[in-house]
């Protein structure tokens, strides 16, 4: 019998780097030129097929990037198995912000969390402020996955999610890998800590 795994993924990053657009591309393969700023948090799912026997279902929390909502982010990255931290390659300030998010995740999130650093808007390479080398070097130092993506063209989008899926520990029994289980189906009182601790296959090392 084939196995399905479910993981909670959270998107973080400065406002307007393209978090919602990246998710829209990944989940629906669409792109809007004009998107309103996210004020809140949206929940979406998408399944990645790794091979005939294995699928990974991502439960994605797309969060607001604006500074004023920063204090709410922990509620959304709590219990997350993976995080995609986005910056905009045309703005070096957004990489700084990404570093802040990564430091916070390393301090506050589940120690086994898989973090991917993504430089979005690769279609705007002409206005590039962040070099590939710089970001890549930082990612290597911190033990993060790294890629450049373009939500607009679709370049690199499904690849990074697939790469994350492959990196996630697929050794846990399917029943206990329901990271964010119960969003729609669950009932009050699901002990999430218990579920997390019941994943003995998770390795603390992300590199």
């Amino acid at each position, binding site marked *: 019998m084939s196995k399905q795994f479910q993981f909670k993924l959270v998107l973080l990053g400065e406002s307007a780097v393209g978090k919602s657009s990246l998710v829209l591309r990944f989940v629906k393969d669409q792109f809007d030129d004009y998107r309103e700023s996210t*004020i809140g948090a*949206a929940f979406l799912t998408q399944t990645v*097929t790794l091979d*005939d026997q294995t699928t990974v279902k991502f439960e994605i*929390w797309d969060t607001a990037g604006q500074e004023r*909502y920063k204090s709410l982010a922990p509620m959304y990255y709590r219990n997350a198995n993976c995080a995609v931290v986005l910056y905009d390659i045309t703005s070096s300030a957004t990489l700084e912000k990404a570093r802040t998010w990564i430091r916070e995740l390393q301090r506050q999130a589940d120690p086994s969390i898989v973090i991917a650093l993504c430089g979005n808007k690769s279609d705007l390479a002409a206005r590039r402020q962040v070099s590939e080398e710089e970001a890549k070097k930082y990612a290597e130092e911190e033990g993060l996955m790294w890629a450049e993506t373009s939500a607009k063209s679709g370049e690199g989008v499904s690849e990074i999610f697939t790469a994350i899926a492959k990196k996630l520990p697929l050794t846990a029994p399917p029943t*206990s890998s329901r990271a964010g289980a*119960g969003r729609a189906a669950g009932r009050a009182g699901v*002990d999430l800590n218990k579920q997390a601790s019941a994943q003995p296959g998770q390795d603390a090392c992300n590199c």
Partner: protein
Amino acid sequence: MAALENSIRALLRPSDEVKAVLEALALPAATDPAAPDQPLDSPSQIDDRRNKRILVVVSHSESLDTHEEGSVFVLKAKPAGAFDQADILRVFPIFGDFSVAVAQVPPVSSELSAAQSSPGLLMLTITGGLESQKLLILRTLHAESLRVLLAECKRLKDLADAPPEAAPSLTTFSWLAPYTARRAPLPALFTPEDLRTARTPLHARLSAAFAGGDAGDDFADAVRIRDHWIRARVRESCKAGAAKLRIRTGTFNVNGNLPSQDLASWLGRSSQRVRETVLPPLKEVSPFSVPEDPFESAAEKAALPAETGTPADDAAPDLIVLGFQELDLSAEALLYASSTARSDAWAEAVFAALGERGGEYEMLASKQLVGMLMLVLVKTTMRAAFTDVRTCAAGTGIMGLMGNKGGTAVRLVFTPPTEKADAQPNAGTVLTFVNAHLAAFDEMVERRNADFHELVRRLRFTFSDAGAGAGAPPAKGQTVPVAVTCGVFESDAVFWMGDLNYRIDVPDADVRVVLVEALADERETRLEALMPYDQLKTVMRAGKAFDMFDEGRITHLPTYRFNAGLLQDDLGYDLKRRPAWTDRVLYAASDAARIEQLSYEGYPQITMSDHRPVSAEFVVEMDVLECAAAEAAARRLYAQLRGLEDAHEDTNARINLKIMDPAVGMGSISYGKSASRRVGIKNVGKVPCAYRLVPVDGEGAAHPDWLKVEPMTALILPDELAYMTLTASIDNSAAARLNVGPKELECTLILHTVMGKDHFIAVTAEYMPTCFANSLTRLTRLPGPIRELGSGDLLAEDRAINAPREIMRLVNWLMGPDILLHNVFVSDEADEAIIDTIRECLDSGADFPFSPDAKDESRPIAFGETLLCLLGSLTEPIVPSALHARCVEVTSRDEAFEMLDEFPPAAVNVWISVTAFLHFVCQSAANPEAKAKRIAGVFAPVLLQGTANAVSPVGRRNFLLYFIS
């Protein structure tokens, strides 16, 4: 196969998983299942996609603690992926009589066997599961998949039959609801919800969700919000007028006596309501005679001029419900009363007391359990409107079962008569009456609370007449499942009367002093002073018992305990028992019934028992709803809400709310004033959608204490623009915290779209500090007006001023020339606008914009009120709580003044200034002594605040009197 499995998974909710998949064929409808070897007609039938089915074994486990549950889903096959809810044709939960039988189907058609070289067709017969499901017969060619499927079914069936001991079954297949019920069914319109639920705000009934969506049950929440909305809308749109019912209730502990006095006044029949001054001597009156006014002679001596406007005679009640206790003391140890002689005597006395109106009533129901008797009389002309009358009883006395204590109850349905003879019937309203006698003795509060909960649990009405519908608990049930019993709270209105036996927690002597004074004058105010100590009020406030009930204001004297013998006080109360309001009538109602209490009285002139009877008269107003019209409206509304509770997450793209203003500035907010802003929420999606506010985490509240949000949850139709009102207001506890904290207030409200995303609404406000709700020490260390205080520049402790300048400013103004002090502190009509101005001046340091005016009373009254509020708002009382017990012990003026040595310095200064001023106020009154008592009654609870320590309220007042009289 993997692709098929993936698309099935997309259909399932995250907690459910695919265990086995099998492709199969449904037999054409005409096939007779009794002839299982009937062959398929042609290969075309096999190819016809309409016949293709997919069987899936789905399993669910709530958490690692609960065991797994399984179910077989039958899906319609699709050419490529993308199943939706509608493709789920059947769901067979694997438990109970679930079974799958397999048989070989001999290939008859040679064409078929030629086309399929497989081992041949296998036939499956699935039975069991949900109540009315018929068996299902399918055929399949995939023997291997079938083997896997059967193995899974067997495993799950074994689990269901013998769940592992350590894993209690918690879910009982409720996880199937979103799949099976294409939509959760329409709510039962006319079955009352449990009142305890109905009286809980909707948002408090929703699942315990918080930001991040990890907890909570959106599907169940959507159904709750939907049902609430439909019920409210039906009521709104179908209301055809209102029906009123006048109900008189009464409770009387008769102490084993037979009726020996006229009960007319208790039944509201006496034209003269007698003031409870002196208790008339007992007079024997036969219940069987109907004298003109049998106790006139006894009562008249004491009677003051009759109070007019007694409604009793103008409008006779439609229903009279009386609860008696201790009817039969001789049978105390028995479970049941042996004869009806006593209840008959009381029933006759009641009819006799109704006088010439007695003939207009008939007995609708009666129920006795040993000493507890309940009588329900109805106006004969209204008799037909009351149906489905049921009674029950439960003993909670000796051994927790005996009938010396306990309760009896009556439940009935009132259906407003239709105007025209051919009109459709109206919806009924369920009324329940409980008569209880709870555990006695001062200190048995917990036992009384337990008795209450026990009665709620055990008083159950039985619906034994099995005819589905008419006898069922619902007022008009046809669509409602038949329940065998129902409790007292499954009603639109509940009246709970009886000898509840709750006492008053103040020293015995205090109660008697207050009662004597209450008889002299200002009865209501003086009795009010005892209410904080009433045990029943206390347990209601604390939510320990009766917390869903309301009670009318008590203005009559305690009804317990009287003694005809020698050991009685001047009022007739037994010297050995602390007087108490043991006999009470409480009520609770849902939105469907609005209750107005007309009277709540005791009858000291009825002296035959050690208790006095109590009556309470009510008008219950109900909307008139025509059943058929209401049901049609409900169906329309139900159809309108299609899509709301569609649990599948893929649809959440269709759910779309827009917050018109996600950043709300409330401006500056100050103590005692409130500021409101409206936030527009528009449904820009394609389906109806509901929102609710959720807290950030499991511990917090959805909004801070300084901000109220209304409504906390709502349902919005597509294109509808709804408004949520945010109101900032600072109460004492919020002010106490904010005065010493940061002044910039901000919070983010999380508005969760049910089945959809979270929206953030940022709210900001600026807090304006106030001198209210500070500690006395902090006020004396302010260098100037509190609004000018920068961060952290309080005066050093040794530089503190003598007394808060705000208190002194108020006292000084009131002591000024040409100030009319006559009504200060005694009028309860202070002008809010003036108080606001005064408060603003105190906080900002501005001069009061009022000049003395010898004719004006409103300003002095407002100043007096502000002084009381300011003293009352202090975070610690002026007299430290630890000293209260000693203060009430002092017996002379000198001792009282010695107590001041123990006060903190600032408190002494305030105490002296305030009491000196109060002394001045009293001296300038016409009757200084009476005035002093009055003012001490107002100030003692403020200056010596706190009711928890059971320190005598009379003692506190006397302590203050040493200073002001």
